[in-house]
């Protein structure tokens, strides 16, 4: 895997980056093992007679599947694209440890540490609403709808920071085509997983669960719009929205619904989670726009993650530097429809 990355982006991947990543993965295994130890401990205390046997068994069972996933399922086959050529990639370690994913906690480091129990397989997405026939698609069948592509996209968070991420995925348009929406489908709504058992953040009512996002149909069908199933050539880590998430690079990051379980085609504009939470702060469109400020964060400039302590800010570009989407909003007052 690591060799692969080096081959693809020799100038962008430093050998020094490899170590922290391994350390990071080791840490995850350690956390998993520690968790197994805890569970074993609980078993030991309840079943005193089987204490020792229980501990050994649980530990062994917990370690095996993790090792298996690592060996067989991690790598993805995909074709490269011209998107993001010349961009300096954000380190894998930063992309996978600095996340906004409130289902696993509100701290940026929570998703990486609290998502180890989350199971992205088996997975299926149910397709509902204004479609010829409601149906369900498994993650395996989804991956067959179109060849996987690598798209290097900038991601601009509404909080004023940004990354450059090499996503692997397929155009959302290919799923829409398969779903066969009817003429009544004006918007598409994404509903994320909210399993309180494996997503500890869901137990706290910080947001109105489940997480809901949406796009207008033309936005959803836009060639830039991606259903990501991986990053850095690997299966999507849990903390980045495994097994499948939305990526709309010209919009603020919160539009990217993670761990999608349901897609609904609807006639009316969906009431999305952040719009419900703060309608004066977050809009349905949420297009990156340096001219429309947020009550908390400066939107005319941004901090690039990984640039270092003394790098300063970079100018934020309209539509995050993807002007090709502009025609979809021709004639719209983007101050009003922010």
């Amino acid at each position: 895997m690591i060799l692969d990355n080096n081959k693809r982006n020799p100038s962008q991947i430093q050998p020094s980056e490899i170590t922290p990543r391994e350390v990071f993965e080791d840490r995850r295994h350690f956390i998993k093992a520690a968790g197994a130890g805890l569970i074993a401990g609980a078993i030991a205390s309840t079943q005193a007679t089987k204490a020792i046997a229980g501990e050994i068994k649980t530990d062994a069972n917990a370690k095996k599947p993790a090792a298996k996933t690592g060996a067989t399922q991690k790598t993805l086959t995909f074709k490269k694209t011209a998107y993001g050529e010349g961009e300096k990639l954000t380190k894998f370690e930063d992309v996978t440890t600095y996340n906004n994913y409130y289902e696993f906690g509100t701290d940026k480091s929570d998703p990486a540490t609290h998502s180890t129990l989350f199971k992205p397989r088996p997975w299926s997405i149910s397709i509902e609403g204004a479609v010829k026939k409601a149906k369900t698609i498994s993650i395996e069948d989804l991956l067959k709808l179109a060849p996987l592509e690598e798209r290097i996209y900038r991601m601009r968070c509404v909080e004023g920071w940004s990354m450059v991420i090499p996503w692997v995925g397929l155009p959302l348009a290919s799923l829409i085509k398969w779903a066969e929406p009817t003429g009544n489908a004006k918007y598409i709504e994404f509903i994320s997983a909210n399993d309180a058992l494996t997503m500890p953040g869901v137990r706290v009512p910080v947001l109105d669960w489940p997480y809901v996002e949406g796009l207008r149909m033309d936005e959803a069908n836009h060639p830039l719009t991606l259903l990501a199933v991986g990053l850095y050539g690997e299966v999507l880590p849990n903390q980045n929205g495994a097994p499948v998430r939305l990526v709309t690079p010209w919009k603020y990051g919160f539009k990217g619904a993670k761990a999608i379980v349901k897609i609904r085609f609807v006639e009316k504009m969906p009431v999305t989670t952040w719009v419900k939470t703060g309608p004066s702060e977050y809009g349905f469109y949420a297009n990156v726009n340096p001219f429309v400020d947020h009550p908390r964060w400066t939107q005319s400039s941004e901090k690039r993650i990984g640039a270092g302590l003394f790098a300063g800010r970079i100018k934020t570009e309209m539509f995050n530097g993807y002007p090709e989407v502009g025609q979809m909003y021709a004639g719209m007052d983007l101050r009003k429809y922010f």
Partner: protein
Amino acid sequence: MYAQRVFYAKCLIWVFAFIPILRLVWLGVNDDLTANPVEFVERSTGTWALVFLLLSLSMTPIRLLTKQVWQIQLRRLLGLWMFAYACLHITTYVWLDYGFVWADIAKDIIKHPYVIVGFTAYLLTIPLALTSNSAMIKRLKSKWKTLHQAVYLISILVILHFWWLVKKDVTEPFYYAAVLCILLGIRVYYKAIASKNKL
């Protein structure tokens, strides 16, 4: 009588106060300031300024509750460390976050309520720090006390600054707000008792 105790307590404060700075330097040298180092340093210095503010505000409640007075002599040192961390906080903001681009800084302050209250709180701490030496205390006499009561306003502005900056989960600012409420509450309670006794 308490001179030695005060001396040791001050030594302890000096050691304690340097730990967060040394930690930041250590993490910085090891490139371990998280993916967003500027935000991390901003958060850390801001949090420690708030901690020292609350510590300096704890000295009077301790006197009211325990009838001990020696710890009042620690208040100035705690207050000055609050100012030191506030200065580090604002330096991080102006330099590391905004790279001295004054136009952007001015825009950020004017447009964002949490920045306005934070910046105002910082400006208000400057006269307090400047008049903290014994000569100024003597010179200002009764005016000194009035001036330094601005700390109550500062503490409320700082809590607002923290509260408004948070996107959704206000758990952390809530804890600090609760501590401040207790510290101010004790003062109000004893003041009420005192005025009752006067009658």
